[in-house]
């Protein structure tokens, strides 16, 4: 009596989806509706009271979105997921669920610039404090933990430098202090790396990047690992205490190992409203089916481009963990043996001005502020995404004046290299 566990490629195509029971439609329909008819008052009361599974209003849930959520949960190896309008929306809901005013969390200093802004500025207005630490030194996280600390946040593959983080080392600190470890897995995607296998409790995604993969739809997601005990410390009352929003329901006791995802939905998404549109959920779901194929090609192409850049005399340095000489190579082999991802940085001997010339000289690469598209993308963080940071912060975040970040697409790698070659000739 043994049951087959489907492989990753199978889950990427099938998990969460079923034929439409009324029409037989095999693709997941776009349920472009705001609301759902109740059978009767009792059915409505059951849905509003969380007593029945089902849909009420698309600000809280939607059947197209639900397929995307279940598929993400399956691919990450989590218990449940919640899709949102963006990765920023997902982060807002996570921290709203674990923090009260006056409480804090410890976050890696090297993060996506947007996350640095959200944590450092926007969250201040809620009375939520971020404390920055260095992923290369797990004790820098531990030293800042106090009785008001409620979580630890890292990226699995850090933006913009493309460095793998020792998730297990940070996870050990989190576990020792009874804190949930939240991991942004956007750059790696679950094809390359599954943080729950290394001690993460919550995974967050910008679906806008590799998950959707085609640069056409914004989206975010929270995946619940089902591993954290939200009731043990009494520090997470959104999950462990009776909730007045639902007549006194205790979410952790009621929903067990998927309570965090439910709490983010019914206490966060319901009241803040960063819902994903059904159409975006559909497009991202379509992209997700080919995630394994795309991620492998992205990684293979990126390695070839990194090797080529390493031999170019205008390049001061290349930071790509897939290169055997890279200081991050051992962590890549441990955490992401299938490849080192698509996004990395390199430094130009000509500094800031050479960076500007390069991003303005490319023809195939697109100069824009995104990553994880099928198309190759390029950006000079110091003049764009990280512009608002001080020079000191820029360097700390891996976005110094000479740094160029590329997101290598799935085109022919010869064409990608040829474009860099012609643009560098003018830089």
């Amino acid at each position, binding site marked *: 009596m043994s049951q087959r566990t489907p492989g990753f490629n199978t889950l990427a195509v099938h998990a969460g989806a079923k*034929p439409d*029971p009324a029409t037989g439609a095999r693709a997941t329909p776009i349920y472009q509706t705001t609301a759902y008819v109740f*059978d009767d008052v009792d059915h409505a009361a059951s849905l509003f*009271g969380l007593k029945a*599974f089902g849909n009420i209003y698309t600000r809280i849930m939607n059947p197209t979105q639900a397929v995307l959520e279940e598929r993400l949960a399956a691919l990450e190896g989590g218990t449940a997921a919640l899709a949102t309008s963006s990765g920023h929306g997902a982060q807002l809901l996570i921290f709203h669920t674990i923090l009260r005013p006056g409480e804090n969390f410890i976050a890696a200093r090297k993060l996506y610039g947007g996350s640095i802004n959200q944590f450092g500025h926007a969250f201040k207005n809620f009375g939520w404090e971020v404390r920055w630490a260095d992923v290369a030194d797990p004790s820098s996280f531990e030293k800042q933990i106090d009785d008001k600390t409620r979580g630890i946040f890292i990226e699995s593959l850090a933006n913009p430098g493309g460095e793998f983080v020792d998730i297990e080392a940070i996870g050990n600190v989190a576990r020792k202090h009874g804190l949930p470890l939240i991991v942004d897995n956007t750059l790696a995607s679950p094809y390359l790396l599954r943080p729950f296998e290394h001690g993460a409790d919550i995974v967050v995604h910008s679906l806008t990047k590799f998950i959707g993969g085609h640069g056409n739809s914004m989206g975010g997601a929270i995946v619940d690992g089902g591993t954290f005990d939200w009731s043990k410390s009494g520090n997470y009352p959104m999950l462990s205490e009776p909730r007045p929003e639902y007549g006194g*329901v205790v979410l952790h006791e009621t929903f067990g190992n998927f309570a965090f995802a439910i709490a983010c*939905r019914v206490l966060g998404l319901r009241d803040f409203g960063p819902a994903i549109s059904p159409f975006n959920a559909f497009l991202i779901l379509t992209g997700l089916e080919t995630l394994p194929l795309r991620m492998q090609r992205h990684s293979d192409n990126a390695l070839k481009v990194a090797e080529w850049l390493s031999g170019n005399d205008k390049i001061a340095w290349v930071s790509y963990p897939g290169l055997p000489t890279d200081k991050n190579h051992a962590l890549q082999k441990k955490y992401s043996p299938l490849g080192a991802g698509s996004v990395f940085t390199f430094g130009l001997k000509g500094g800031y001005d050479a960076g500007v010339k390069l991003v303005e000289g490319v023809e195939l690469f697109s100069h824009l502020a995104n990553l994880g598209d099928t198309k190759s993308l390029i950006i000079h963080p110091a003049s764009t995404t990280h512009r608002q940071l001080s020079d000191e912060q820029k360097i700390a975040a891996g976005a110094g004046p000479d740094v160029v970040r590329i997101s290598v697409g799935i085109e022919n790698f010869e064409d990608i290299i040829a474009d860099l070659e012609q643009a560098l000739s003018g830089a």
Partner: protein
Amino acid sequence: MNHDSYDNAYISGILNSVKTIAIVGASANDVRPSFFVTKYLIDKGFTVFPINPGQAGKDLLGRPVYARLADVPEPIDMVDIFRASSAVLPIVDEALALRPLPKVIWMQLTVRHDEAAAKAEAAGVKVVMNRCPKIEYGRLSGEIGWNGVNSGVISSKKPTMRQGFQSFGIRQK
């Protein structure tokens, strides 16, 4: 029987065969998990007998509440235990004293008692521990996916629809 993980076929076989379920520890408080489960199982067409000495003689969701399993006037197919693990053994003894014997003894999420389980299995009764029948029903029917929960099931077959909107059943193999 491995009680650390159950095959989907074992659980769906149980949920598709039992018709009457006694819920030991069913609460009248409508925000308690045992109330949620009682309501859900009634909505799915099971005949539910709430067991709760403090509520005996009253009505719960239109069903008469009994003090003890032995008081239920009809055959019980499944006993669902909503009590702490330490309280399980005497309840299983009561269940095994019933005639006809129940087909299944089910212990809720976090509830596990291996000695009681072995006793029940020796008497030919199937046992499920540390699971919730509402979650398992939602998982195997596909309903739970509407709330973004990983059902662990993939299938290209037509979902089984029950009466009304937004109600799936568990497919018969």
